[in-house]
């Protein structure tokens, strides 16, 4: 089986301006929604109490809200979690009252109405922890960005490092934009997914950059645009198959992983889709505009290329 029988290099770079415009507009939209709506942060970040209560029959959210309202707690959110029988309740932290007291109070009220209500999970996070988590998240993001840039600058060249990071940070912002637009819950696992996506889609750009380097070495007569087009064309098959496979796994998580993994899988899905787009259409284009040249790459690896006389493919080049 073969999905990709591409005879001639696709002139991706001709349309580079259009692709970049598209991603710039998406990026701006994401930033706009991030500022306009903000992220719907989970209890882990905001501090507060979260309870998961399971009923034997589908629960009526309106009555549950009413029961809790009688306790005089304010800003309580009640929603279904996964199934109609599971209810998730989020409450902001109340001063002078421990979460144990709070959750017990709520449970008592709920049990009065329905004796079958069962507390499945509670989570309480103090406000000081929430701030720390947000800071740690940003630190992790900075670490990833700096680490990857240093590695790419060492293995390739700084222009590639900059191009890869810009392309992939734009993925991250777009994922966040989706979460802001749909007001999906942004929790710690989602943060993990976002950072994993960052590593994953950089790896995508790396594959293409690797090919660009190799092409610079092999096809001495091609100009930079042709080389990039050829590199993208010859790797597009693996790009799509790999992402397809990863997406199969993520899809399985989305289908079978339940409500806990739902947003995690969703973040990965968006990340994978935009990862393809950004590494194929955006990263290489940025690298091109930053002015990558044959000399940038060859001087680093010249000795290595010449030295590999046992390379069986030296003759395979047509």
């Amino acid at each position: 089986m073969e999905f990709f029988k591409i005879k001639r290099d696709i002139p991706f770079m001709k349309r580079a301006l259009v692709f970049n415009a598209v991603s710039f507009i998406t990026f701006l939209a994401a930033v706009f929604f991030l500022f306009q709506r903000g992220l719907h942060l989970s209890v882990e970040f905001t501090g507060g109490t979260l309870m998961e209560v399971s009923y034997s029959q589908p629960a009526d959210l309106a009555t549950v809200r009413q029961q809790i309202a009688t306790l005089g707690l304010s800003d309580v959110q009640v929603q279904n979690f996964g199934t109609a029988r599971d209810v998730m309740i989020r409450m902001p932290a109340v001063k002078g009252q421990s979460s144990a007291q709070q959750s017990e109070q709520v449970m008592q009220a709920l049990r009065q109405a329905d004796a079958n209500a069962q507390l499945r999970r509670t989570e309480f996070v103090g406000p000081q922890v929430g701030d720390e988590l947000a800071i740690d998240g940003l630190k992790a993001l900075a670490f990833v960005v700096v680490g990857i840039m240093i590695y790419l600058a060492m293995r390739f060249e700084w222009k590639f490092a900059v191009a890869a990071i810009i392309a992939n940070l734009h993925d991250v912002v777009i994922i966040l934009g989706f979460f802001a637009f749909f007001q999906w819950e942004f929790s710690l696992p989602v943060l993990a997914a976002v950072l994993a996506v960052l590593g994953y889609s950089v790896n995508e750009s790396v594959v293409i950059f690797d090919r660009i380097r190799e092409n610079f070495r092999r096809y001495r007569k091609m100009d930079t645009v042709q080389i990039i087009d050829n590199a993208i064309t010859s790797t597009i098959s693996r790009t799509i198959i790999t992402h397809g496979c990863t997406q199969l796994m993520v899809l399985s998580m989305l289908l079978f992983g339940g409500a806990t993994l739902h947003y995690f899988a969703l973040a990965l899905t968006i990340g994978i889709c935009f990862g393809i787009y950004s590494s194929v259409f955006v990263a290489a284009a940025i690298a091109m505009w930053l002015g990558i040249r044959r000399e940038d790459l060859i001087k680093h690896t010249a000795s290595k290329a010449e030295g590999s006389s046992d390379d069986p493919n030296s003759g395979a080049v047509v």
Partner: protein
Amino acid sequence: MNRYPIWKYAIILVALWVGSVYTLPNFFGEAPAVQVSAGKSSVKVNADVQARVEAALQAAGLQPDAITSEGASLKVRFDSTEAQLKAKDAIQHALSSDAGQSSYVVALNLLSRSPSWLSALGAAPMYLGLDLRGGVHFMLQVDMDAVLTKKAESLAGDIRTALREKNVRHTGINRVGQTIDIRFRDATMQEAALRVLQDQFADLQATASTDGAEQKLVAVIRPEAARRVQAQAVKQNITTLHNRINELGVAEPVIQQQGVDRIVVQLPGVQDTAKAKDILGRTATLEVRMVDESAEARAAEFGTAAVPFGDERYLDRNGQGVVVKKQVILTGENLTDAQPGFDNQTQEAAVHLTLDAKGSRIFKDVTRENVGKRMAILLFEKGKGEVVTAPVIRGEIGGGRVQISGHMSTVEANDTALLLRAGSLAAPMEIIEERTIGPSLGAENIAKGFDSVTWGFIAVTAFMCVYYMLFGVFSSVALAVNLLLLVAVLSMLQATLTLPGMAAMALVLGMAIDANVLINERVREELRNGAAPQSAIHAGYDRAWATILDSNVTTLIAGLALLAFGSGPVRGFAVVHCLGILTSMFSAVFFSRGLVNLWYGRQKKLKNVSIGTVWRG
């Protein structure tokens, strides 16, 4: 050119064997068990205890599946939960026969059903996190400022005693925040006091100053001493938590310090979460202080006048005010035991306290010097003080035996005794993070995680086999080996597996296949360009390797960042993610090459490679 030397195959075989052995325990499941461990450092779980346990079980007519003694605990395995519960009662009864109080912790636990030869190899199933097995997780923050304030308070008391011994007259010693102010009428006394402080209080840094007509010494705790005091306080709190949890009877509690001032407590499998929260969350400390009986203080008791300087007002159980001095005579640190009981005369519920040597001496001195005066016993819970009782001292109390009584119910007496016996906390703590996961939710999470991995795996391997034919089969086998090795490494390291960890497992499998796709695509490309099959395979692996390495390193950087800065669920994800990337490098490149070499490498005149369609443009 596509041949592996024998030693490379040997490495593969060893890796597969080790991987299988360490993965195996995960398939046996877990059986209900009762675990006996020492509740105090002075007792040991030895053969003697084992004999008593066996005898108790025999008497109860229970047949255990296995009894294993490992380290400081004894584990008895049963085939049903019913037998487990009966056995727990029987063992508890047998071990606590002496004096009604047990020095052993008897707890319910789950034990791997894997055969003994596996356990002998040190192979154990993966360690499941709380979200998979159910339980309670707490993060507590120790109030470090309070530690220093308390230390300053006790130092102020010590200075008072020291100055009196040396006949240094002062006009007042006060603790202001975390510093101690000492006032004098003249400079000679100030100098004498400074010498005393320098000689006897190495932890303090004193500076002399003049405040109007008065001479003054301001003493602060030295930074290094402050750090030491704080570290000790956290340590003592951990010990105290250990004791309290032992009272609860939890099989494998985790109590760890995190950072400078935080303590993480995890109680897997705890069903009665409310009770656990109650016992842990309560931060009861006991203090003995003198009641101020001056006229102003009496007035302040009824709230009609301001509380005099150096005093504090607390309420007793009936809501009546009691004005006590700030100076603390004794704290819970000097307590060795607390037992619930009844007052001999009034038959009221009471708590009997036993003090240590230092506590007994202080108590004796204080009671002798203050006959006829009132002494208050205060219990501080969650930062709020309450006067349990404030009796009049009738005479000197020696021997270190004290009784607290006063309007307590039997339950209250029991709880108070438990809290006091479990030790006092050196510093107040606050729960800043809490997670409770019901056991049914844990089981469901395991099933969900397992389903995600299984179906994702099936889908990916099915696609690979169809698209790349035999090479796809090799890739799929390599992917299976990756999973095997990952589970083996997780079992070996006993790293905590959580639901995000299972998600990472699925994700890492989806990402690991990338290496094989790269290789297979490269081999196809070489074939398309007209290379001979053998050299196409060789070139495909060689050329893909640099790319695989680069892409894995970048992914690993992200994984390490998560590991370094993540907490809780993120860390669980990161551990599996990083390990999975490492195992995938072995399986996807080294192992799959081995398979290919074994299959194709010996055929000298290889004409065809089964790698799906190779079209020619």
